[in-house]
């Protein structure tokens, strides 16, 4: 005969202990060493041909960010299927998800610009030049998948220009006030993204390209001739990319892969631990 146990108490989830100021694991390099990114103080341009694995890298960064206690997400994805997977988690975290709607995208970017101005005012008031982890500031990371959709495909030319101007402002000024921009596109040529915006990205991830010129557009002029040519990445190894970061020399990296099931698991967890009694943006099945 089994003893009668009372119902177990509701599990109290433990808040994530990671911080956006921690290095983000993105995969392994060709020497077998783990590769990390310092995301807060850098902007990342993620580019390459379709199917190269851009979204794999983005998912790693988003996954890490959502497990951080100091993260406010802003996700723009006209395809819905990449960053859209995190829609519920973004809402539960107090962030925003924008689909293929440039009007909403512009509204969100204008709000971000105001937040940025206020943050700089705060820094000026405290005699500081940038935010530190000890400030306990929320890092507002702006993830934009298929940047070209907003800058060259949809909306009026005026809207596209405003979108580019706002993103350029965020990339230029957002670094010190804990508002990094992570943008993905296929080929960041000048007809898609102005050079004045493209060259502001400190980190560049070049996935497989169709020409050495495309590789140079992403990494910078001359790297293809120096042997760092994203065209040479095998099409049979998606997720491999050249990353040019702080060292100044491109490194070949294989991005860690998150399956759909793992992403759903992360979304469930993130949404669960951030639920509260006041607002129930997403109903829980259990």
């Amino acid at each position, binding site marked *: 005969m089994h003893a009668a146990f009372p119902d177990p108490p509701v599990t109290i*989830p433990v808040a994530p202990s990671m911080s956006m100021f921690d290095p983000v694991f993105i995969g392994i390099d060709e020497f077998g060493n783990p590769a990390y990114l310092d995301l807060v103080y850098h902007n990342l341009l993620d580019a390459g041909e379709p199917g190269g694995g851009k979204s794999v890298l983005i998912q790693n960064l988003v996954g890490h960010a959502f497990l951080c206690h100091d993260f406010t997400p802003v996700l723009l994805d006209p395809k819905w299927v990449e960053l859209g997977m995190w829609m519920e988690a973004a809402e539960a975290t107090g962030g925003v998800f924008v689909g293929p709607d440039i009007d909403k995208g512009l509204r969100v970017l204008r709000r971000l610009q105001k937040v940025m101005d206020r943050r700089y005012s705060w820094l000026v008031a405290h005699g500081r030049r940038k935010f530190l982890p000890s400030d306990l500031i929320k890092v507002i990371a702006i993830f934009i998948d298929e940047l070209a959709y907003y800058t060259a495909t949809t909306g009026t030319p005026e809207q596209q220009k405003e979108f580019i101007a706002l993103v350029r402002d965020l990339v230029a000024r957002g670094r010190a006030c804990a508002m990094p921009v992570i943008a993905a596109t296929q080929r960041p040529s000048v007809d898609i993204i102005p050079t004045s915006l493209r060259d502001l990205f400190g980190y560049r991830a070049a996935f497989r390209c169709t020409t050495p010129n495309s590789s140079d557009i992403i990494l910078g002029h001359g790297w293809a001739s120096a042997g760092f040519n994203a065209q040479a990445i095998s099409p049979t190894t998606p997720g491999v990319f050249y990353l040019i970061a702080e060292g100044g020399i491109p490194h070949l990296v294989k991005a*860690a892969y998150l399956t759909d099931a793992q992403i759903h698991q992360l979304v469930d967890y993130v949404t669960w631990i951030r639920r509260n009694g006041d607002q129930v943006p997403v109903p829980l099945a259990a």
Partner: protein
Amino acid sequence: MSKRTFGTRHTNRGGIGRRGSSVTMIQTNVQYSYLRTAKITFYVVMAIVGPFAAVISTHYLHPLAAVPLGLVAGTIAGGLIACIIAIWPVLRAIWWWLPEITLAMLLIGGWVYLQDQINPILTGVIYASIIATIGLIPALRRYTLALLWCLIVRHRLRTCFNTFLPTDRHGHLPFIGLAKPIPVGERVRVWLRPGLSLEQLETQLGKIAVACWATSVTVTKARTSNSAAIYLDIKRRDVLGGLVGSPLTEDLPTDVPAITRPVATVPAQLDLADVPDTHDTEPTERPAKKNGRPPAVTGTPAKTATDNPDLDWI
């Protein structure tokens, strides 16, 4: 001495000068004389070390005795350094083959030692066992092969540099340092001589890859403070082909309730035939090919796909 002759008749027998109407031009090959450099170095070192040693010796000896002592010291020091310079080509060749020479000496020395201690048959058995062990244990085999590639690559690089790399006027080539195995192949440290630059090597990377039987080669600075020290990474293996898992979900609890995702209206008409050809947009005019370039796109903007799932393909 290389000699290039233009318009020389068969009757000419070479040499500098004019015979008839033909002009013989000889490209003088500047030979770097190690002996000459050694002589100069000998005198310079002797001139520095000799007086210095003599001055120090005066503290202990009479000045008349210190002078010959300084001369002797200067001669010895200068002679040693001059000898090194004079035989530098030999030393360089020894450096090129140093790993092989060391390995051969170890093998032969070990054989002789074991033969004296036991007998030749048992020595052969021990050697065969070592070779078999290396061949049968995958990790040892891979590491041994990687080391062998390091030996091969140094010689292949020397061949490359001799074949197609520009040299200075003395014919000096980059100094090839040690090679070490890396997961993708080998990393070789190279010291560039004056007259060479990293950019010049970058233009030859394709040829170097072919000569080293590699997939690709990259060249990077070994130090930020010195442009002469570089790394050549010879890549012959693809180590990034496998799947790299993410650790993000490793520590998540397993009893997390799944959220109920809102079910949007799912479109059922998913084929092109399901979408009738309505003239909801202006017919596209053929762009005028004036000066071979179509005019800039102006006018009606593209429609946003805000509420239209049919435009999700963009």
